[in-house]
């Protein structure tokens, strides 16, 4: 990683770029091209190329390390090498130019480096601190103080973050639209309450694995952030139907909702979603094992825009659910039914005969559905846009059944334990030999 050195040794102020003049000894490229054009060219380069250019000459060093080239910096690839001083030097050099910074996985970054960053780069809009395990609430306090333009923030897996961070962000970052606080397990309802009061513009909230959050916390978010389009509460194991009811009551614009592995939810959740969220296009409810056909009936009748559904391991659902989905959701394009062990060929017949089947259905996952047989594949032969079908561990499916499906839908990818079909080469040879025989005869 070159920029490490470059930044340590050549921290210069920006004014030098305008002062520098070209002498007769310079390389022809510097004489022919005005420095504005060189700067323009450099602005298209990535981090590594810029650092290489910075080593060419003093002139190029100044141009390549000019802040205007460093508006979007992603240091994810160098996560192991990045230490505090690198970030400090980048912040000093880029100043107000820096709009997007990703320090994803840079585990040795500390609060101190990010404090300097927050002070220097006040125009930052996107910041990714995923898995920067060292950072604490201090970082977020500085962000709240200085970064008023922040609209996109990812602090997932930073486990030292607490409610204080969210309070600080709500005080300063009113333009926040996207926030990811997944696996920040210290966050509680109080933090969500504070955040929802300050950041009304949120359209995406990702909070996977927030085990301390209960219905109350989700309620604050739902009530105060009505612009929410995307909510992810994967593995928030303490939430119940009440939380989903709040979402249904307030977030009418919601498009994406993930409630996978929220194991306490029951059909009441699906009913409230059906009543409030008519625009829902994606619903992920894997491992919600209390859901039954009744819940999906209520949902399907009202949410006719559903395109993607993940119902993996909703073990109670039967062919009836598939019947409702087939009847009421004509836009369905991806459907995951893995480990739904009660499903039979009859249910797949409904899917195959539905309105979505011929045009929209692209992906169908049926792993570990033990009752599915080759007859299901026959029912799906009309699904012209089907791109991929998963059949792992469906033990009644045979090689012949898959072969028949492939002849009807030649572009489909069938995922099963059988070897993928390869065109048999021996056929051509056999014929040729026969012909040779003929000529000899």
């Amino acid at each position, binding site marked *: 990683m070159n920029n490490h050195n470059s930044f340590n040794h050549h921290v210069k102020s920006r004014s030098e770029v305008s002062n520098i003049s070209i002498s007769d000894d310079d390389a022809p490229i510097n004489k022919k091209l005005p420095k504005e054009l060189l700067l323009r060219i450099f602005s298209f380069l990535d981090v590594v190329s810029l650092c290489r250019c910075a080593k060419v000459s003093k002139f190029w060093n100044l141009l390549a390390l000019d802040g205007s080239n460093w508006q979007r910096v992603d240091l994810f*690839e160098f996560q192991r090498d990045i230490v505090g001083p690198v970030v400090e030097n980048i912040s000093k050099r880029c100043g107000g130019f820096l709009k997007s910074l990703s320090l994803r996985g840079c585990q040795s970054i500390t609060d101190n480096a990010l404090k300097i960053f927050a002070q220097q780069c006040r125009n930052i809009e996107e910041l990714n601190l995923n898995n920067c395990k060292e950072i604490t609430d201090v970082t977020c306090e500085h962000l709240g103080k200085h970064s008023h333009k922040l609209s996109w923030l990812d602090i997932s897996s930073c486990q030292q973050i607490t409610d204080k961070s969210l309070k600080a962000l709500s005080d300063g970052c009113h333009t926040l639209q996207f926030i990811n606080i997944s696996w920040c397990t210290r966050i509680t309802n109080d933090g969500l309450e504070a955040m929802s009061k300050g950041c009304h513009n949120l359209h995406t909230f990702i909070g996977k694995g927030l085990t301390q959050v209960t219905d109350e916390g989700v309620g604050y978010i739902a009530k105060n952030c009505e612009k929410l389009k995307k909510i992810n509460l994967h593995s928030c194991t303490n939430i119940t139907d009440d939380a989903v009811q709040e979402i249904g009551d307030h977030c009418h614009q919601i498009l994406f909702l993930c409630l996978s592995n929220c194991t306490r939810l029951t059909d009441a959740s699906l009913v409230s979603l059906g009543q409030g969220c008519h625009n829902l296009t994606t619903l992920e409810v894997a491992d919600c094992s209390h859901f039954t056909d009744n819940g999906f009936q209520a949902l399907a009748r009202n949410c006719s825009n559903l395109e993607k559904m993940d119902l993996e391991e909703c073990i109670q659902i039967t062919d009836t659910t598939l019947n409702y989905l087939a009847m009421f959701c004509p836009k369905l394009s991806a459907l995951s039914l893995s480990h739904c062990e009660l499903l039979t060929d009859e249910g797949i017949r409904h899917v195959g005969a539905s309105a979505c089947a011929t045009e929209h259905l692209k992906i169908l996952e049926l792993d570990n559905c033990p009752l599915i047989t080759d007859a299901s594949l026959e029912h799906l032969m009309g699904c012209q846009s089907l791109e991929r079908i998963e059949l792992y*561990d469906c033990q009644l499916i*045979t090689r012949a059944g898959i072969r028949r499906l492939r002849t009807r839908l030649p572009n489909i*990818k*069938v995922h099963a*334990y*059988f070897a*993928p079909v390869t065109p048999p080469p021996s056929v051509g040879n056999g014929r040729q030999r026969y012909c040779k025989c003929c000529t000899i005869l």
Partner: protein
Amino acid sequence: MSSDSRGCRLLSDLNSVFRKDPEIDEYDFLPVLEPKHNRSPLILQDHKLGLEMWSVKILHHYAYNTLMTWRMKEVNAKFLGQLDLICLTRAIVLVNPDCSTAWNIRKELIESGDLSVADDLKLGALVLGKHPKSPETFSHRKWLFTTLVDSCLANSSGSTVSNSSVNMYNNFVNMDAIDVNLDPNVQNGFNVEPSSKQPDFQEHAFKELRNCQKASDKYPSNYNAWSHRIWVVKHCLNCSLQVLFGELHTTENWVSKHISDHSGFHYRQFLLTSLQKQSIDLKEQFSVCYKNLIQKELATTIDLIKCYEGHEALWYHRRYIFQNLCQSYSAGTLLELFHPQHEYEDDIVLNISQKKTKLENERQVLLLKEIDTVTKSDLTSKDKFHKTLAQKYIDWIQKFSRSLES
């Protein structure tokens, strides 16, 4: 393209199998060359895992390629978290345990604290069940034990550790395994130093000895396993007398069942040499004379040679024992020379010369006796190869005695 997706699925199958049963103690490949049903090729029963043959190649191909593109930092490489890395490297070493990159990545994971040494030892033991000779696995385990020793030493307090460690290892005694009458006072002496601090480490070290035994059961003349066992005794158990005794006892039965396993005999030779080095302690603490031990070993070896004719390894072992016996005669006598019971200094000079001649006589008798027994019993054998081996042995003794004289 399609085979790619199968690899991914097989890996997740493997992971779920290990999640379902963390106590898997054996695995093997089943001779199923092509998938007959659309069924997972991983079969789990009573902690035993079977992988159908056709899936092994796909699984390894997928895991290896994914890991290597990540390792080379290629542009389109998938981001892999610590958990992914643990699963991928596990899949690789189960199929090909000599992939040092995979083991090295696991070393890095241990250093960063994402993987526990105990877990990795468990995986290594599992791998050795299927690939008992894998040198990379053994060298990885050496590394694991070194880190374990380091962490134990770092945890325990101060400088007393190095002194007490010998006693601590002595403290672990498998009394049943040792047919030596221990002086009760000596036993009490051991109990003064309680080994509460590192029961884990000793447990691991003794488990490792058992693992080596298993590996040498599975593969004849398993040099790697036996030399690893030597390493464990030396570096993890400090060649403590009680461990050496226990090992001598447990391997005695083993070598009598594996008479052609030179590596096994070499291990016993190592044990005897280490006991010889500590023969003074041996006498003081256990009232066991080293000479008796070696004579017993010679008797057993002669017995084995009689029962199983024509096995070269036995004859080589006999050479070692005999040479060692001759040496112990000289060493034993020299020890007596400087014993404090000689009160008069004037007598010592006289005594030395007397003893020297006595020693030479004794040795001569020994040599003649050995040649005599071999000529009588073995040279008359009907087995041609056995006769050649006996003849070679006699030639060697004569050469050896000449070298002693000069």
